[in-house]
């Protein structure tokens, strides 16, 4: 038993039948566990999502008067018609995702949750929000409708002129 000499360094040289089967069993369990993790991860990741399209049809540009900020509550974006042209901002606060609101009397965008404030072009004025509100890609469709892609951020100050 204990005084039996072990041949160190040579793995397998002194491998008993029971140890072999213990290792085989543990190895099989390890492989099965890894397989279960992979299986579970694949199953839990949905292959099809029934979520709203990121692309929004915001309607005719004429419906947005000059110097207006229009919040689309359902899609969480602002359509802004400024002197330089049209652009779209995300209305989702960069702090923790609350929906911001346009304050026409103050001329700012404000978040009701934690008091972040943004300028009309999305630039941060104050508050816990770490980043300005991102600009979203805007273009005109063949029918002349304003289109917004909520999934694509663009650099600020890229206006669409109609």
């Amino acid at each position, binding site marked *: 038993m204990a005084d039996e000499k072990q041949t160190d360094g040579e793995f397998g040289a002194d491998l008993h039948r029971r140890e072999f089967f213990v290792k085989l069993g543990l190895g099989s369990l390890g492989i099965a566990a890894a397989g279960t993790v992979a299986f579970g991860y*694949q199953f839990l*990741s949905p292959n099809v999502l029934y979520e709203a399209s990121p692309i929004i049809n915001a309607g005719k540009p004429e419906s947005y008067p000059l110097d207006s900020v229009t919040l689309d509550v359902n899609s969480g974006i602002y359509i802004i018609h400024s002197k330089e042209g049209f652009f779209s901002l995300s209305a989702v606060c960069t702090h923790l995702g609350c929906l911001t609101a346009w304050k026409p009397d103050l001329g700012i965008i404000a978040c009701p949750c934690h008091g972040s404030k943004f300028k009309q072009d999305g630039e941060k004025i104050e508050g816990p929000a770490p980043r300005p509100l991102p600009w979203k890609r805007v273009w005109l469709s063949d029918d002349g409708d304003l289109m917004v892609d909520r999934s694509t951020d663009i650099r600020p100050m890229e206006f669409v002129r109609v």
Partner: protein
Amino acid sequence: MASSPNYFDQLRKSRVWRSIFRSGTGASTVHRALAIQQNVFLNLFSTKVRRRMLSFSATWYLGTLTFGTFLILVATGVLLMLYYHPSVPQAYADTKDLQFVVSSGLFLRNLHRWSAHAMVFLVFAHMFKVFYRGAYRAPREFNWVIGIILLLVTLLLSYTGYLLPWDQLAYWAITVGSNIASAVPLMGNKIHFLLLGGNAVNANALLRFYVLHCMILPLAAIFFIAVHFWRIRKDGGLYAHQSEPATLRAQAAAAKEAR
């Protein structure tokens, strides 16, 4: 074995292991008995069993196999619940999504379905085995009753699960099945109304069957399975014909007479 470190023994001697399993690591009879007795789950079972009780011929392992299918059904059922909405517009579409869109969804759905069939079969096989061996007799009459309850719970689980795919087969099967319930004298129509949550199989019925299938009946099954296992211990272990005291006494008497 002493020539190499035993991983299990090292693990079992670790402080974490000892904080969870307090019965100790020895291989003595006492330690082995304590390991069963001091475990909240294993406590349901006997600390000692006769070898004969564990032989294949005694039970054909039918009860254990039934429990195995139940565990498979719980595991696969919980996973299926992650993609299934029990609502009229979505139930059928979700079922089809599970078959054709979700990774391994078809495998899990089929495993759930086949295990359900297997469980019904095994429950009946277990019951026949117990019946023909006479294992239902005293002192095990009450465990037989628990077994009948478990049979009914199994059949109800099967029946309620039948509606959930929300296809034609499901709809008409439950329509027919719930009309059978209305054949109960005097309160049949009331039972039918309460079971479906309305006069026809519709949104309320789907939700009720979902709650029954995923919550109420599985909890009932777990509860009665626990009692069923515990009663095995309380009734003197599994029925192993040769080791029953009455049988042994009869054998001893016969041997004495032969002498």
